């Protein structure tokens, strides 16, 4: 399988802090790749660099064969992104926001596509409410919809389930599983290991900016190892080595 994301000694420094430290990884097309780590491990920084929102201090990356630090706008044109914080514009309604994203992304038939998402994520009754007045869960749904409006070949999503109720979480997980089955790729950042174990095909563990492990969930399952135990063991050893 070809790689849709490839990084080579990718590094980001904030002063003395090595937020991402020489990370080299590869994400195959058609995978649901989980980037796992504790809070502050560098997951969000990694997504920001891969989507051209932040430049790396050193190292290189290719995302869908585009260098995000040189061509940030083309990368964001090609991929879908759900940021860590749900930040739709305050004074547009949910419907206007999707129309706005549709215009920016030059999406045809935006009304029908928006209707589908309002229906699928069950928030059509909030379509004419200002984004600032929406609950966090509804904002999360809106951010989810905007990331997939243009059916990107690759979506980079940061903690997409955190504000959703159990029913909606199940629906979203089902959507993500089907999305990769149709040949697309998802790069999911999360610290909720149960979700990662349930839906991810591949994963990487980031700890204090360093990549501790990459592998498939199947390898763990075949050896009767829970991702949760594997993660804890690795992080403890990682702490000892630091």
């Amino acid at each position, binding site marked *: 399988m070809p790689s849709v994301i490839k990084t080579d000694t990718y590094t980001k420094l904030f002063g003395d802090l090595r937020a991402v430290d020489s990370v080299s990884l590869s994400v195959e097309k058609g995978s649901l790749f989980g980037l796992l780590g504790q809070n502050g491990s560098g997951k969000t920084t990694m997504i920001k660099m891969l989507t051209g929102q932040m430049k790396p201090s050193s190292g290189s990356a290719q995302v869908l064969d585009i260098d995000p630090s040189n061509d940030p706008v083309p990368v964001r044109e090609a991929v879908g992104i759900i940021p860590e914080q749900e930040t739709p*514009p305050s*004074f547009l309604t949910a419907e206007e926001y999707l129309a706005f994203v549709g*215009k920016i992304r030059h999406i045809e038939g935006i009304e029908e596509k928006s209707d589908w998402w309002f229906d699928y994520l069950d928030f059509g009754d909030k379509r004419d409410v200002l984004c600032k007045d929406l609950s966090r869960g509804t904002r999360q749904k809106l951010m989810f919809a905007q990331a997939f409006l243009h059916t990107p070949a690759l979506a980079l999503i940061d903690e997409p389930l955190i504000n959703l109720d159990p029913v909606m979480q199940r629906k979203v997980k089902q959507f993500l599983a089907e999305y990769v089955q149709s040949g697309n790729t998802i790069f999911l950042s999360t610290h909720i290991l149960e979700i990662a174990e349930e839906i991810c095909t591949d994963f990487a563990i980031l700890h204090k900016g360093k990549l501790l492990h990459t592998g498939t969930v199947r390898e763990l399952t075949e050896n009767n190892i829970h991702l949760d135990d594997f993660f804890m063991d690795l992080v403890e050893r990682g702490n000892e080595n630091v």
Partner: protein
Amino acid sequence: MIFSWTLLKEETRMFDLFTTMFKEEWRLHSTLFGSLNFALFPVLIFGIAFMGAFLLPFIRSVMDLSVLVFLMHGNFALLGIMVGSFGLMGKEIMNRRFGQASLIAYSARSLPVSEKRLFLNFVVKDIVYYFILWVLPFCMGFILAAPLMGMSLYYPLLTLLTLTLSFLTGLCAVFLLSAGYSRSKTAFAVVCAIAAASAALFVFGFNGGATALFPPLAVFYSFSAESLAISVGVILILFTLSMVFFTSEYQSSEKHYKNRHPMLSQRLALLPEHDLVAKDFIDLYRSGIGIGQTLFSFLLPLGLIWLILSLMGGFLPPENLLLIFAVVTGVISSTMYTWLTEFDAIASYMFLPLSVSSVIKAKIESFTVLQAVPVIFLTGVALYSGTAAYIPHALVVSLCISFFALSVLVRLCGLSPTTLIYNARIFLTYMLLIGPLILVLIILTFTSPLFAFAGILLVIPSWYFIQSGFEKWDNTDFAGF
């Protein structure tokens, strides 16, 4: 005894609240600009005033001193208005800029303190904080320069008093207006109309003059216990009324709106970034910032400035007054850029296929559309004052200054002008680029009104600042969002 202990405990709690709010304000600013950069801000203000004091004899030779006195007091009243407005919109601004953040002032629901008590602490904190940040360093510059210039300390000390009163008048006025607005928008509009009509009647009908319209000026020109009592009394009345009417808006109403974006975007199709411009105008309209800022940050200060400038008709020819006013209008119009950047953090755009420069371009296009307001306003003033022949001069100089100041803001502050301008280095650069230029243009138009057209030369540096601003901000990491 129990009563006094309770009272003491209450006072301690109030003081704790005050110091915590004070620290919060400091940390907000020092996080944004770096502790050293922000700590240097009062030093910078002091330096400007200290050096400016030595220029007074030169300024006096080309400009009536009453104009300078008025501009200083007007600026400090405006500063009070700005500080008050930012504080009252703090929660909204913090949330837009930092995500789910808030200020202690908005925590009445989670702290066992009444909202009025929180508001009282908030007002006192604002007064002390901004007095130390702005008013005191500015006046200390004059006070320390006075002995070196062989001047008596009377006027510098009086300036400290009257500029403090001006700042407090602006601050308390905006608190009252805001408190009134949150109670009843209709009552608020009626009160504003009555206040404006009374002020105009007082100035023109009873020959009250500028000093009567603005009590701190009366204290400056004829200091007496009576004038001081009136000025302090006005502040106390404004403050007390704002406390009486204050209510925090906790009920978030879920209003429903029609989908306006596609239609508006189509109407603005001539503009290259029309989708983003349409969003800006929806934001301006729905947030109330468009109307609120036009009223409080544009029409109100400019109306007041015009009223007072027109009282100087005896000293200056009307075309000179119009051109001074056009220059001031240009500077104030440039702040419309800050209206457009208050809605969302840059994070709202960065996950879309947009560069920072294209967002700034859209803001500049929106800004250009908004310049219709000063154009109409200036034209109206020129027609009213019988200087219609100088409308082209006034419009050219005003718009050129407005766009030049905008370009400087774009280069220095990108999409965060309201916060980055408090960075000492940025503020100094801004002042050095704008201040001398304004003085030169005013002086030149005094020699001949035709010099107003010299403003066209500003197109070149404006273009440079905007282009280099695009490059700068496209290559800047927004690590903090």
